[in-house]
């Protein structure tokens, strides 16, 4: 048995996943919420984006089960020893990529090294690019076989990707059709064609993702799809691992702002007077310090503490993880003023409305009014701000890593990849693939998050619909 390790962020991510599940169940039971979410998914862009986000969430969760494998027992040793490195389920799935370390840089899908070495050939010293240990190692005559090998693997990947996407799409349509209480064939047809939520958009998204991911998945077994970095590590693996870091920061840091923002915002708006003054003073103080500086100051202090107390952490992964967790906490503790201000303003409006006045006239206590009458009516603001912050925090992580107060350098992150890419881009010939991989993954993730956030905002905030480009356009050009 390996020794399971529950890192702080693992626990947080699983708690978040459970909370998400609970929320989904709540939405399904409440018609009002259900209608709002149906409006979100009726927006094709938001639906397509949520497919991608769901996939990233899956990768994140896979990457959030950590364990330390048991080492083969040494002769004469009784106690079982565990590996000092912490692996995750995702590492186990991608074990070929982890083990396929090259000496240094190599181009995407290449079978030759990037830097030339001096080799004695036919009695003369020549500069040639060496064969890679892993990339294309199965080719006997790479110059002839390479292209054909890539082509048939790619084609196979396309087929496999399409097949998997088709299977998943059929399962989805079947499930939707069954919910509409139709026999399975009509159900699938109806789910494809009708309904406020255009499920076929989700199917198309799955198809595109399948076609995009299929060939790389096929190649990854025998090549480095995105090449390797300076130390010879596979770039695709790093990019996949970075998804978790981005997700953890995006979700944990936004959720960490919620308790303070919600409690203080509602209290300030509801009680007014000196409570309001005090809370306003607090958030003015916090927001008056430029965000990066405030975060840097807090992170530096955390860092000093960690450096002074190395004995607390068993492995390097644990230390890096605690740093990530504390970074999210710092982001949360410094990021609440924006939402707090919004909630305060909304509560100020709500407390004058008739139903709150009526509750007060009936003698309902303040705490109960805030919980039962105010909170549910500001919850949509909370949701909107949370989804909007998610994407901006992923972008922010890259900047923080560059400034030097981001995640631990030993942890894969988009910021870390961009940081390294900066020096790689000034090499000659240029090493562009780390940068390209970070760019592709990050833009896909952030774009999806932005589109999803737009959908949520339009569905939950009626005022936002005025500026919607898409709806207006469709009306003008039917």
């Amino acid at each position, binding site marked *: 048995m390996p020794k399971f390790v529950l890192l702080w962020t693992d626990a947080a991510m699983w708690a978040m996943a459970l909370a998400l599940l609970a929320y989904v169940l709540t939405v399904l039971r409440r018609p009002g919420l259900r209608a709002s979410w149906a409006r979100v998914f009726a927006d094709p862009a938001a639906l397509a984006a949520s497919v991608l986000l769901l996939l990233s969430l899956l990768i994140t969760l896979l990457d959030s089960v950590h364990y330390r494998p048991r080492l083969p027992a040494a002769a004469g040793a009784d106690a079982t020893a565990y590996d000092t490195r912490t692996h995750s389920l995702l590492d186990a799935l991608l074990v070929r990529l982890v083990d396929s370390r090259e000496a240094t840089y190599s181009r995407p899908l290449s079978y030759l090294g990037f830097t030339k070495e001096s080799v004695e050939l036919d009695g003369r010293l020549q500069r040639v690019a060496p064969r890679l240990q892993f990339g294309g190692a199965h080719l006997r005559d790479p110059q002839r076989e390479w292209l054909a090998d890539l082509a048939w693997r790619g084609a196979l990947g396309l087929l496999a990707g399409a097949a998997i996407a088709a299977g998943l799409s059929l399962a989805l349509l079947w499930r939707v059709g069954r919910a509409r209480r139709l026999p399975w064939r009509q159900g699938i047809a109806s789910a494809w064609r009708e309904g406020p939520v255009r499920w076929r958009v989700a199917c198309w998204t799955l198809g595109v993702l399948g076609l995009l991911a299929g060939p790389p998945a096929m190649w990854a077994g025998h090549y480095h799809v995105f090449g390797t970095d300076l130390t010879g590590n596979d770039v695709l693996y790093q990019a996949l691992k970075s998804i978790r870091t981005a997700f953890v920061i995006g979700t944990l840091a936004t959720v960490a702002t919620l308790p303070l923002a919600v409690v203080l915002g509602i209290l300030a708006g509801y009680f007014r007077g000196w409570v309001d003054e005090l809370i306003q003073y607090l958030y003015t103080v916090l927001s*008056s*310090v*430029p965000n990066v500086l405030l975060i840097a100051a*807090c992170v530096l202090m955390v860092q000093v503490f960690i450096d002074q107390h190395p004995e607390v952490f068993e492995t390097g992964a644990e230390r890096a993880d605690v740093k990530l967790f504390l970074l999210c906490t710092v982001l949360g503790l410094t990021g609440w003023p924006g939402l707090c201000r919004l909630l305060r303003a909304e509560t100020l409006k709500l407390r004058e409305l008739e139903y709150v006045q009526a509750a007060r006239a009936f003698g309902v206590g303040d705490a109960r009014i805030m919980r039962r009458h105010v909170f549910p009516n500001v919850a949509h603001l909370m949701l909107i701000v949370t989804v909007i912050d998610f994407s901006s925090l992923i972008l922010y992580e*890259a900047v923080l890593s560059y400034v030097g107060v981001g995640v631990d350098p030993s942890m894969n992150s988009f910021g870390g990849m*961009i940081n390294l890419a900066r020096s790689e881009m000034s090499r000659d010939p240029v090493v562009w693939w780390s*940068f390209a991989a970070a760019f592709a993954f990050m833009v896909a993730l952030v774009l999806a998050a932005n589109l999803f956030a737009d959908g949520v905002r339009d569905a939950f905030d009626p005022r936002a619909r005025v500026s919607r480009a898409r709806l207006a356009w469709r009306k003008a050009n039917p």
Partner: protein
Amino acid sequence: MGRYIVRRTLYGALVLLGVNLATFFLFFSVNTPDDMARLNIGGKRVNQEVIDKWKAERGYDKPLYFNPARQGAERFTDTIFWERSVSLFALRFGRSDAESAGDIGHEVAARMWVSLQLALPLFVLQLIASTAFALLLALFRHTRLDFWGVVACVLMLSISSLFYIIVGQYFFSRVLRLAPISGYVGGWDVLKFLVLPIGLSLLARLGGEARLYRAMLLEEMGKDYVRTARAKGLSELAVLYRHVLRNALIPIITSAGAYLPYVFLGSLVFESFFGLPGLGAYIIEAIGKQDFAVVRTMVFLGSLLYIVSYILIDVAYTWADPRVRLA
């Protein structure tokens, strides 16, 4: 208006005091000066003697808040809190923590002008470019141009500013050789070093801001007075410029004003990438060297600038909208 500004200034001073107390607490209570000394000296040559010397050189060998060894007012003034925190209000920043670096005030004074050179034109151009693009989209609202414009905005704001910098440096400086990759000189020659960072920064923020301003303009356009203006027979352009823009200016000023502190502090990432010796690059260097004295100073300066800019924004409101009376 005068009374309002005085009141805001007093409140600002109170906020600044809060910032100061909080930073001091964060920096000196979580970790002792000994911890900082050990971290800053680093390496193997750490012993109590070296630490004491380091602390004495920077005045960290005094008690934190209260010095019982002194008489009268000196009990309070001869402390770390007084010398390193209260003195910030007099803009005396003291010596930096790093070994070689000198007086912080001197550095700040020299670097501020570099940051201004980058950030002031950027601020003005940004406001003009984003508003112009938003006006264009609003003028052609509900058309293909508007739709694809918004799509472009969403795409652009999904790309990290670091990507703009790296690709821009690679493309414009290395491939096309239009501008130097990085560096700084005095005088008018500085222009060629500023073109690229200003241009790329404009591009990096255009998507987000133009989309925001477009939403603000469209919200104004739905109001009754706009319909009245159109009913009078005014052209769409006249409605947009003379009526809608004037009214949408308030939210635009507010959101643009949030960048005002950075006009002086400089853009951290852009300065550092383009080798401009401004305050932003100073901050990044200080964080890299774990120079806490500089970070503390910059926190103070940053919040000072924030408070000043918010008072300026309030004054700008009265200019943009005569209905606003500050009292």
